[in-house]
């Protein structure tokens, strides 16, 4: 920790305020800190880009074995049959800021007591500051009988797994609409990224069936994991009302426990016991948890609701680890009540970077994250609701002229035309 204290005080003298113009006007620090970023997804790359600019003398190491980058918010449009997998696949190398060192391995072990991480080849990388941005693991295996190779077969869809799975999911949706029958939708009880996506898939299936004149041939059932379809009350009310108007049945407190792909039968846990439904189509959203390396480290919450699945302990306003002050958790892995969207990353990254810059410049870190979470809720082909909210469940619309609970084309326009550019700009630290 001595080196860290040295950095904090020494760099204070050299703190400078940066170049003009908004984002780029952000304060800078000349601390020569060793910064490790675990994960090169939405959060990891955005962090690397901003840190490179705001801490130009820091040694930044990004560790991630994945070389392809997936624009996951676009998986919904792949699953709707509108985009192709290529539309959501970039290369991490194109966004890695120059001067950052990228180790193309996974972090196998986090050792915050000795301020090091170990990579999958056994290489130990020391740090002064660690950013955990590993995203989360999709735990399909926790559903008995399910594994991701089943996606696209036997009426099973899941847009979450990867772009080809999202494309296979559209083919499954399309075939189901053509053949008719019972379609099941739902979500897991765990924390999850983009909690709106299971609802979007339900709406898309309904709309596709209407467009094909097949709505009367399909029965759609949404199995909510608890007594609500969405955790923000006004959104719950609105979606429930829309489901009723579109003849989409809802079962509350039904959690998918097992599927039998051959027999096309799904088993749910409910407060009244286990129930089984036959289906012709099912959209499976897997339980989600921390990746193994995080789960097996001292970083996760030790008790409370976020401990079970290994989410990294973090103060919700600063995303700083309360037990390891030089560790921050950003993006999906952060053990905070909301914020598992790319839009959240956009607000989280400037907070942690500005605070680190302030701290290494001897100033008080004052930036806070309010839990901003957003998910344009696609409600039909061409329509969406631009839903944004904070930790307290307050709706926090960015545009005063776009009502969050109205189905609008302009919200769809943002989803279909705006988000990808904004996401890519975020990866470069410019949005």
């Amino acid at each position: 920790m001595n080196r860290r204290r040295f950095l904090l005080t020494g760099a204070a003298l050299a703190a400078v305020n940066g170049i003009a113009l908004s984002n780029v006007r952000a304060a800078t620090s000349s601390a020569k800190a060793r910064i490790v970023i675990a994960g090169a997804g939405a959060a990891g790359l955005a962090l690397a880009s901003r840190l490179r600019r705001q801490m130009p003398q820091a040694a930044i190491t990004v560790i991630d074995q994945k070389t392809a980058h997936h624009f996951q918010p676009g998986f919904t449009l792949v699953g709707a049959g509108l985009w192709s997998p290529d539309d959501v696949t970039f290369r991490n190398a194109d966004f890695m800021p120059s001067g950052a060192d990228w180790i193309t391995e996974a972090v196998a072990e986090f050792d915050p007591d000795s301020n090091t991480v170990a990579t999958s080849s056994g290489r130990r990388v020391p740090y002064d500051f660690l950013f955990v941005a590993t995203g989360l693991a999709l735990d399909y295996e926790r559903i008995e009988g399910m594994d991701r190779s089943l996606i696209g077969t036997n009426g099973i869809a899941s847009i979450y797994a990867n772009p080809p799975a999202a494309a296979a999911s559209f083919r499954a949706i399309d075939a189901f609409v053509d053949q008719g029958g019972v379609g099941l939708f739902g979500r897991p009880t765990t924390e999850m990224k983009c909690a709106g996506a299971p609802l979007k898939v339900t709406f898309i299936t309904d709309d596709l069936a209407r467009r094909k004149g097949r709505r009367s041939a399909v029965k759609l059932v949404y199995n909510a994991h608890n007594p609500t379809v969405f955790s923000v009350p006004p959104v719950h009310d609105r979606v429930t009302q829309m489901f009723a108007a579109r003849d989409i049945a809802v079962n509350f407190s039904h959690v998918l426990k097992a599927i039998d792909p051959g027999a096309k039968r799904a088993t749910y846990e409910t407060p009244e016991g286990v129930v089984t439904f036959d289906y012709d189509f099912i959209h499976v959203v897997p339980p989600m948890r921390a990746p193994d390396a995080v789960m097996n480290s001292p970083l996760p919450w030790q008790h409370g609701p976020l401990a079970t699945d290994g989410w990294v302990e973090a103060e919700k306003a600063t995303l700083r680890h309360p037990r390891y002050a030089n560790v921050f958790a950003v993006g999906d892995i952060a053990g905070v009540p909301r914020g598992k969207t790319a839009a959240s990353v956009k607000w989280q990254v400037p907070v942690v970077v500005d605070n680190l810059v302030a701290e290494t410049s001897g100033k008080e870190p004052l930036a806070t994250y309010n839990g901003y979470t957003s998910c344009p809720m696609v409600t039909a082909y061409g329509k969406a609701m631009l839903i944004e909210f904070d930790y307290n469940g307050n709706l926090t619309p960015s545009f005063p002229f776009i009502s969050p609970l109205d189905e609008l084309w302009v919200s769809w326009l943002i989803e279909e035309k705006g988000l990808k550019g904004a996401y890519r700009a975020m990866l470069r630290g410019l949005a």
Partner: protein
Amino acid sequence: MEDFNPVTMFAILRESLGPWLWGLLLIALVLVVGVVSAAMKLRSARRSPKHPIIAAALAGGVATAIFFMLVPGWTMATHAALNGPVDYLAAILIAFIPGGGIAAMVFSMASWRCARRTTAVCDKSMA
């Protein structure tokens, strides 16, 4: 909203449009230069801009109307998706971008034509 400053907006546009952005900016520049030089030409020839403006407004209006019909399709939606005043306003504003470009082009061409020679459509009211 306060986060949508010009730098951020430009970065988002650049990422959304890729190399097309430079092509579009070039076209915009050519149109601006065209409009300004045509207006100067008219002025030095002492001709009224009335007819070029009318021609530009007509062409721009028709083009905006046509593009308004096409805009939802550009987002993989149909016109039935337009669901409120804000949708119509957004679609019109987007359609106005190519519509405005066509208006600028027509204004430049009509002005040069008027400035160069006396035609039935170009009066000499400024003379």
